């Protein structure tokens, strides 16, 4: 099978307009004859469901939480980018496109990224019209801030709760369609499989998480909007329920998985306090605008700090190493996420980590408080300081914060073409669930943009083309493929329920997380990855022998839900390792120790690795097959990122 990204012909800036014109339309009267299944109601799913409902399609939407409003998009803090150039500071569609391609370390598709930058402006208009209360200036117009080291102020925000407000906007649009009867919402339903007929996706199998009922749903197309898989690392900034199950089961039914090893590690998270830790909390990147990152100069001082015999504010100026400022004088504390994260990790590995566990460096506001005054600092970061205090019981106005990187986002995901179609016709992937437009590293404030772009402005066009081509003939769950897939799911559930071993699924998950973080995290080596592969295979075998799953299917059963997700994470973990092993270059958040410049920076290998890795599932316990989508760059010139 050859990969065809279906990138339209023509000049970059005209591709999308031309493509929209070339796409087939569904006659308005025919739209109600099509049933669309949407799994996930985060930004991507809710916006798609609302828009397709408005257009007249019959939509069935699913989510595993008790309400669509709780999708993990709700947790995004910082903001959403758009090339509005409201600040007159030189922004443009092309600049946003360029920054995104470069930020992604030249591993994203030009055409997709340009389209993203184009529609970014419509997203803001749409959200404002829905009543999303973006921050405003006194004059009543929208406010912007600069984010993640970007040189223009193009980030729209709603205090530290941008994701929440955007999701509530999409949720309200979704609610309107539910009320109108165009969308039927299924909450507390988990999708467990995709049904394919003659190679086309025609439906899904779900488990009702209240009753355990395993049901089938038929549709002309299935849209997966199920978010990212950062939780493969066990600890991440994702919600506890975020999982890869939907994407993974689709992968097993033929959808290729793109760049699985591309994960983003966010530098400013609150460090782990102990083994009980269930998740990590992100603190907005904006903290690095005024905070200075440092670690003690020597391991001895670090040791004293860890033991508590020395307090951070007692460390003499000369004994502090402001390592980002030292190594990257031009950007200082504002280097991109991947660089900041990797350097913190290095400090810890050199024995200079602080905090009880030793897995932390300092983010110090003493200078900022001296320079700006406590009031100004409070006005800017008050809510973040409060949050830090809530969690750690330490006062960041008096003591420097402790921070450590944490997994935050997965650029990898189901491979999709320009139309957001996976390799299974009729099966689409939107939002963080697809392998996305962010290449090897995502810029701050662009995931929200992508989710909404996919849902509001891309899929309504591209899906219509597919639907017009297949015609409105009813899809019926009586087709034997539905029963067959349902039986597969029931067998899988029963197999999980039969596990009455000695270790909880949570313990397996934590172990998987340790392996992934250690060997497939910020820095990777061939040797480590090979070792990790063995460890994961052993873990998988052990899981199916010794895990404990309590209860039965016909009830609310969190143990069963968890077990299914952990089992899928373990399989995904192995694929991530394979992908990381294959990619011998360093790029974006993916640092291969074997591939670095003389001064220790990430070294890309454009000649051999300027491609998207798309993996094809070949059967249980079989090695997956790699397909390459070569990336070609016409509008940008590939250069080594340099922040020194």
């Amino acid at each position, binding site marked *: 099978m050859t990969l065809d990204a279906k990138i339209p012909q023509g000049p970059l800036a005209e591709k999308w307009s031309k493509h929209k014109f070339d796409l087939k339309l569904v006659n308005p009267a025919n739209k109600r004859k099509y049933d669309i299944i949407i799994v996930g109601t985060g930004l991507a799913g809710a916006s798609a469901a609302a828009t397709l409902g408005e257009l007249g399609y019959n939509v069935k939407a699913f989510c595993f939480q008790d*309400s669509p409003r709780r999708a993990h998009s709700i947790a995004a803090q910082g903001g959403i980018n758009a090339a509005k150039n409201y600040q007159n500071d030189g922004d443009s569609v092309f600049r946003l496109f360029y920054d995104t391609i470069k930020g992604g370390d030249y591993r994203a598709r030009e055409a997709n990224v340009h389209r993203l930058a184009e529609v970014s402006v419509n997203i803001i208009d749409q959200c404002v019209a*829905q009543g999303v209360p973006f921050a405003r200036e006194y004059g009543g117009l929208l406010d912007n801030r600069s984010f993640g080291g970007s040189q223009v102020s193009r980030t729209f925000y709603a205090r530290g709760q941008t994701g929440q407000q955007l999701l509530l906007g999409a949720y309200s649009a979704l609610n309107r369609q539910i009320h109108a009867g165009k969308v039927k919402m299924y909450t507390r339903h988990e999708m467990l499989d995709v049904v394919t007929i003659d190679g086309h996706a025609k439906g899904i199998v779900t488990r009702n998480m209240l009753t355990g009922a395993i049901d089938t749903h038929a549709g002309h197309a299935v849209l997966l909007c199920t978010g990212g898989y950062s939780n493969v690392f066990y600890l991440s900034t994702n919600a506890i329920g975020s999982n890869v199950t939907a994407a993974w089961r689709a992968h097993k039914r033929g959808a290729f998985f793109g760049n699985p090893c591309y994960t983003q590690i966010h530098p400013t998270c609150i460090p782990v306090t*102990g083994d009980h830790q269930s998740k990590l909390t992100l603190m907005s990147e904006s903290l690095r605008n005024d905070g200075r990152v440092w670690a003690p100069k020597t391991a001895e001082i670090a040791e004293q700090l860890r033991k508590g015999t020395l307090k951070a504010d007692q460390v003499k100026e000369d004994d502090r190493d402001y390592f980002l400022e030292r190594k990257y004088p031009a950007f200082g504390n504002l280097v991109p996420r991947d660089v900041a994260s990797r350097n913190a990790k290095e400090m810890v590995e050199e024995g200079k980590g602080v905090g009880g566990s030793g897995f932390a460096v300092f983010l110090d506001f003493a200078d900022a408080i001296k320079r700006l005054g406590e009031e100004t600092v409070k006005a800017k970061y008050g809510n973040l300081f409060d949050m830090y205090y809530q969690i750690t019981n330490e006062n960041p106005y008096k003591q420097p914060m402790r921070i450590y990187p944490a997994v935050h986002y997965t650029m990898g995901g189901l491979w999709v073409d320009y139309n957001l179609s996976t390799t299974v016709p009729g099966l689409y992937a939107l939002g963080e669930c697809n392998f996305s437009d962010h290449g090897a590293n995502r810029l701050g404030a662009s995931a929200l943009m992508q989710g909404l772009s996919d849902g509001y402005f891309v899929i309504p066009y591209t899906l219509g083309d597919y639907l017009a081509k297949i015609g409105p003939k009813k899809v019926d769950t009586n087709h034997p493929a539905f029963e067959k897939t349902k039986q597969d799911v029931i067998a899988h559930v029963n197999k999980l329920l039969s596990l009455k071993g000695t270790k909880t699924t949570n313990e397996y998950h934590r172990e998987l997380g340790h392996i992934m973080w250690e060997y497939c995290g910020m820095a990777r080596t061939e040797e480590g990855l090979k070792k990790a592969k063995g460890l994961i295979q052993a873990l998988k075998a052990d899981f199916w022998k010794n895990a404990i799953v309590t209860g039965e299917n016909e009830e609310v059963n969190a143990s069963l839900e968890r077990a299914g997700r952990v089992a899928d994470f373990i399989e995904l973990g192995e694929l991530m390792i394979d992908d990381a092993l294959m990619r011998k270059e360093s790029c974006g958040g993916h640092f291969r120790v074997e591939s670095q410049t003389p001064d220790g920076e990430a070294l890309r290998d454009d000649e051999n690795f300027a491609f998207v890795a798309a993996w094809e599932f070949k059967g249980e316990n079989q090695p997956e097959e790699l397909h390459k989508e070569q990336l070609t760059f016409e509008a940008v010139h590939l250069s080594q990122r340099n922040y020194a």
Partner: protein
Amino acid sequence: MNLTLKVWRQKNAQTAGKFVSYKAENISPDMSFLEMLDVVNESLTHKGDEPINFDHDCREGICGMCSLYINGHPHGPKRGITTCQLHMRTFHDGETITIEPWRAEAFPIVKDLAVDRSAFDRIQQAGGYVSVNTGGVPDGNAIPIPKVIADEAFNSATCIGCGACVAACKNASAMLFVSAKITQLGLLPQGQPERYRRVQSMVAQMDEEGFGSCTNTGACEAECPKEIKLTNIARMNNDYFSAKLFREEEVHEQGH
């Protein structure tokens, strides 16, 4: 620290429930309340017992999924936070903690400590939106909104739909939740065209769900993790009476 938990266990809405006591041992004060429950659940699972079921997801106070009525307080004794943000250092060694589900006719129990809050969704579906289709909207800066109005609308918009207001209210009234949405959209220019219609349909749905009515006691405001203000309720009342008594604005449907 070591604690005794008195936890409400109930298989489902149909069967009767009861309190069961558990020991929570070696609890670190740095743990969050939910992590403490995780520890208890891990040990229950090891014994082959059914773990305690509770709702949670983001664990950072924003998704509104977590609940729990802890020692007489929804989301525990600290103000302005959710249960997932509550840390065990708030409690002392040897304490007995009673954990109950949200109690309201409109929030039937799902299992143990989890309840069904879909009534909230239905209220939002009844009218908690601005009716604009995707595309064809004016430029984001076409409608200037005074900063104070935008900020005030934002305060109302921060509601996470957790239901603590209902849990705290002696009347199990949902008015704080409902009024927050009505106020957010009622303050903004975008929400004006449907302002009086919205309030009528959302209140009608709220009544249908079987929530109690507000006596302005303010327990909701005191327990709301997002500190949504009681003023929202007065705003909703004002809009409602204004709609019903002085405006011939019909509701899009008569009842349901």
